[in-house]
């Protein structure tokens, strides 16, 4: 267990409001169609839990733009984490729900924040166990830098330079009742 220090986490800045999130998702939807020359064979796989909400929104936008239904699945990467058994208790396993085949599909992984790249690595391993997609692309709402693995996003809602001591928190209507992205800063109390 790490040493317990009293940490205070406070909001440092809001980097996206509801309108900015809307615009970013609309732009990403257009980029997805452009890069893939349409929506044929596309599927969206959201990472639990906010990635799933974002994937649903992207699917809705793709339908508005292209008229096609792009299916959405939910992937829980807990059992593929590279820190299982290295840190305290095992995190809660949630459900993977992908009701369609990803075999030979163009899979777009959707997550809220891209940071070290470890979650994306785990997600790709998880996907490979479910089938062999033709291609995997990555869409994120926020790329905050500090990669620890050779991974990059294909679609980025917003690039946000951050310090490692900061946290990026994405809040979505579906989970949090509000659409906004904020940077949280933790400070030790005894400063």
């Amino acid at each position: 267990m790490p040493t317990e220090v009293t940490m205070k986490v406070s909001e440092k800045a809001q980097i996206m409001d509801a309108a900015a999130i809307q615009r970013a998702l609309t732009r990403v939807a257009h980029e997805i169609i452009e890069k893939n020359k349409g929506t044929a064979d596309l599927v969206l796989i959201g990472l639990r839990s906010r990635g799933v909400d974002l994937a649903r929104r992207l699917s809705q936008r793709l339908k508005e733009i292209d008229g096609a239904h792009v299916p959405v699945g939910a992937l829980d990467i807990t059992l593929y984490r590279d820190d299982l058994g290295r840190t305290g208790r095992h995190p809660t396993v949630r459900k993977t729900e992908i009701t369609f085949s990803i075999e030979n599909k163009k899979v777009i992984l959707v997550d809220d924040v891209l940071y070290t790249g470890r979650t994306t690595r785990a997600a790709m391993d998880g996907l490979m166990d479910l089938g062999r997609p033709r291609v995997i692309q990555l869409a994120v709402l926020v790329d905050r830098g500090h990669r620890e693995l050779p991974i990059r996003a294909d679609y980025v809602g917003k690039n946000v330079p951050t310090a490692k001591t900061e946290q990026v928190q994405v809040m979505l209507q579906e989970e949090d009742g509000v659409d906004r992205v904020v940077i949280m800063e933790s400070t030790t109390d005894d400063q």
Partner: protein
Amino acid sequence: MALKRKDLLTIRELESDEIHLILDTADSMKEIASRDIKKVPALRGKTLINLFYEPSTRTRTSFEIAGKWLSADVINISTTVSSVTKGESLLDTGKTLQAMRPDVVVIRHPVPGAPKILADRLQASIINAGDGAHEHPTQALLDLLTIRERLGRLKGLTVAIVGDISHSRVARSGIQAMRKVGMDVRVAGPPTLLPRHPEELGAQVTTDVEAAIADADVIMMLRIQRERQGPTLLPSLREYSRLFGLTVERVKKAREGVLIMHPGPLNRGVEIAPEVADGPYSLILDQVTNGVAIRMALLYLLTGGHAATN
């Protein structure tokens, strides 16, 4: 939320939020069984030893599959081929196993409390897979998962358990688990096979099977365990079957669509009629499927965190 223990020895020691955590985790694990490639890397490098002092097919196989699907290395030891037949004591066997650094030891033993003896002395997590007539916690958990999956809830449901209650570790663990999640339990069986102080179990007791199953949501039939009884408790299997067996006619007197469960293996035509066991409301095969999911959940939850000490 996490399990607050190194071992799973009894249902008695579990708190209800732990039971719900195990059921939720098992529910998530079920997806893996539906895949072409049934393996996730979560327990890579962990070792699971199945130590069985009593014959078992489904429980041992279930733990073995659960361990393998999570990528653990699984070793099976059964009494007929091990040093146990050379007179090695349980503790010596345990110490020998500990020296091989297993992460989890699953034990089935005819003596009540045997898993606790290992748990107190070994670093590995111990899972009780049945200790005499004492407890069989993983069976109780998989039964709850099966009922919850079919009916969408547990609280407020009524379960009738019929058969040899006093020798049944399935009943002992099951009743406690059901009570902890807010279910009502009735037990029925011949007077010789009912516990002497049934009220301590928190269940209503009757010798009238039709009264017990009357408006139950679930009927759980127990196996007549000839290996655990003396010759005098049951005069004849035919009579038992006539008075307590679950026949088609009896099921008709219960609630329409009542769910039928049995921990297996079945004595067809004794405690349960084949038409009932294979009927549309039988959950017997769901129980087997859910057994793997429950054991995956427990292996995952018990290997998280506590064992990191050198």
